[in-house]
């Protein structure tokens, strides 16, 4: 029987329609139910039933033909149609294997090792001196209309700054022996300024090292974990987009990058720089990295949509206050994305 697995985040819904190992479909629906806006017209169950129905119909299926399994942030909503299985995100994130998931939305940063959360509106109001009334109103409107996305760099930067503020003085502990996958509404909802996705990734990697990074545009890691948990015979692997490799240091660095066909180039960077070296999706160049705090490191790394991103900023984990560094980072990402 086909399975419809859904993960309902704070801003959008990710859906996996599994028919067989060979035939499955991943979707994002960029809206979620808002009690304030919709409750006078229809219930949460009616809304999600219509959303799931819509995706089933695209494959000539009825929702009643599928086993429906859901998870949500942090708990799935209680829906009054026939659900086969539901599970909280707390329980589900631990079941993601082979990758280190970092789920980010406007209200939280969630990994297998930590959960950092903030009520944006209450937080905003308790520190009104930090925000102008327009910003407070924006956050308040996102409470009513949760799917809203910022359409300009400045607003999205402010949102990202607030997300990073969730960490306070804490530092994310991130392993360097597993690919990092970045998911959650911050990365799955449509973003008008995609360069800021990479800036956010750099700010979330707050330690030195070499990291394989992927952006999970459909929350596939969560959805496949949900599917595998529901039916252990299925055992599917997620398919996040390969973005490349982040080389993160707190000081200047020198790195030789040698391609598989034997060409090589040396990257030398001072402290507090961001630089992107385009490396194709299917390429796996070898690097030799020298930096004062890291023993000379030789390894093969992944290319990807972005390539190799060098980040030598001394202070990571917060939105960049130095506009020169910020602008050069944005420009590097724009060039790599061909924007």
């Amino acid at each position, binding site marked *: 029987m086909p399975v419809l697995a859904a993960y309902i985040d704070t801003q959008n819904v990710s859906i996996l329609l599994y028919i067989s190992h060979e035939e499955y479909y991943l979707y994002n629906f*960029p*809206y979620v139910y808002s009690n304030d806006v*919709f409750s006078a*017209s229809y219930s949460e169950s009616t809304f999600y039933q219509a959303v799931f129905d819509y995706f089933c119909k695209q494959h000539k299926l009825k929702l009643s033909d599928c086993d429906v399994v859901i998870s949500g942030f942090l708990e799935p909503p209680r829906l009054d149609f026939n659900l086969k299985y539901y599970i909280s995100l707390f329980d589900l994130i631990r079941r993601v294997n082979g990758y280190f998931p970092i789920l980010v939305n406007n209200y939280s940063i969630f990994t297998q090792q930590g959960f950092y959360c903030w009520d944006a509106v209450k937080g905003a109001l308790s520190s009104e001196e930090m925000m102008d*009334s327009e910003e407070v*109103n924006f956050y*308040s*409107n996102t409470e009513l209309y949760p799917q809203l996305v910022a359409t300009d760099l400045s607003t999205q930067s402010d949102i990202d700054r607030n997300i990073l503020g969730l960490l306070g003085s804490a530092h994310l502990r991130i392993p360097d022996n597993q690919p990092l996958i970045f998911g959650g509404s911050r990365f799955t909802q*449509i973003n008008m300024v995609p360069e800021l996705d990479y800036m956010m990734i750099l700010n979330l990697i707050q330690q030195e090292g070499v990291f394989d990074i992927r952006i999970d545009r459909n929350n596939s890691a969560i959805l496949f974990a949900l599917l595998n948990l529901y039916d252990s015979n299925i055992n599917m692997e997620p398919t996040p987009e390969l973005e490349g490799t982040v080389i993160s240091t707190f000081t200047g660095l020198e790195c030789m990058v040698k391609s598989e066909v034997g060409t090589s180039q040396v990257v030398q960077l001072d402290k507090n720089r961001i630089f992107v070296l385009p490396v194709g999706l299917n390429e796996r160049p070898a690097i030799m990295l020298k930096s004062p705090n890291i023993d000379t490191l030789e390894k093969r790394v992944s290319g990807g949509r972005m390539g190799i991103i060098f980040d030598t900023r001394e202070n990571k984990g917060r939105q960049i206050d130095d506009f020169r560094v910020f602008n050069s980072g944005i420009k590097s990402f724009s060039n790599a994305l061909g924007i």
Partner: protein
Amino acid sequence: MYIPVISKLQFNDNVFIERVLPVAGELQVEQGKEVVPYDHVGICMYSHRVYKYPKNFKPKSLKKDGQFYYFGVDIGKIDSQKITAPYNGNLTKTPEGTFEFREVENKYILMSGVWGTVEKTIDKKSVLLRTRTYDINLVASTDCSFAGELIVFPNPSHVLEKFYLDEFTSGAADGKIVYVGNHVTTNLLDEAIKYGLGGIIAGSADRQTFQYARRNNICFGLFSGFGEIPTPDDVYKVLNEVSNRYVFFQGERNILRIPMPPEAVPVKKKLISPLKFVKKGMNVVIMQKPYFGRIGVVDRNTESSIFVKFNSTENAVEIKVPNVYAIE
């Protein structure tokens, strides 16, 4: 592409509304009786106002508990401050040892407030009425309920708000729910609270103003959201048509409920589906600066954007999905 539908107005032709006396009294209708809004459905004797004094209040020449005082007569002191009776009433001692001044009981008449039928009467206290209503969605509202006469300001400029407040609420303001326009400021809200209005509704307000309403426990509702966002035209049109009608503010349910007469023909029916396919000519409400809250018509769409026209002569503007809803 499918997007969710917002329906600001819902017509319900089978709604139950309970009208309740503040204390047990006499019900003046029977099951099955047809009523109109100004019909009396119940009556009781009720003390409308109670003033509670702090612990340091010392009564003056109190001979018995529950002693009667006329308005303006000295009743005691708080420290060195002389306290007079705020209205005709009785001074009583509470079990906690403090004092309260209770207005003399007056006749309280409970009106039906709706066109409908008495479905049930309950214990000399309440009447359940079956009626037809328009429900207008309030996207943000304080958690309180109030029923009263609706006063509609004509979407005034800030300069005229105070004038309208004086003009429209002269006399008894305490039984009124006032629509003050596209936007309400904290200053105007403060004035409205001083006037003792029962409820304030508007298109939008700053978050700070909303919090102020919440702190002051006033019934306060917004049709569009936070910031400077206009009230949708069709909502304003309905409000304007029902000015002076008895309406029900139900904050916990995010609705303003407007009773409709039996002959009223519904303009809006119940929604069929929460999602709607985007196509040319469809009405949408924009949630993106600088058009936030404006309603337009779809001109065309791409995979991630909808191009919207606000009138036939202007060029279409690009709105990113999901910053848009279909509107019915």
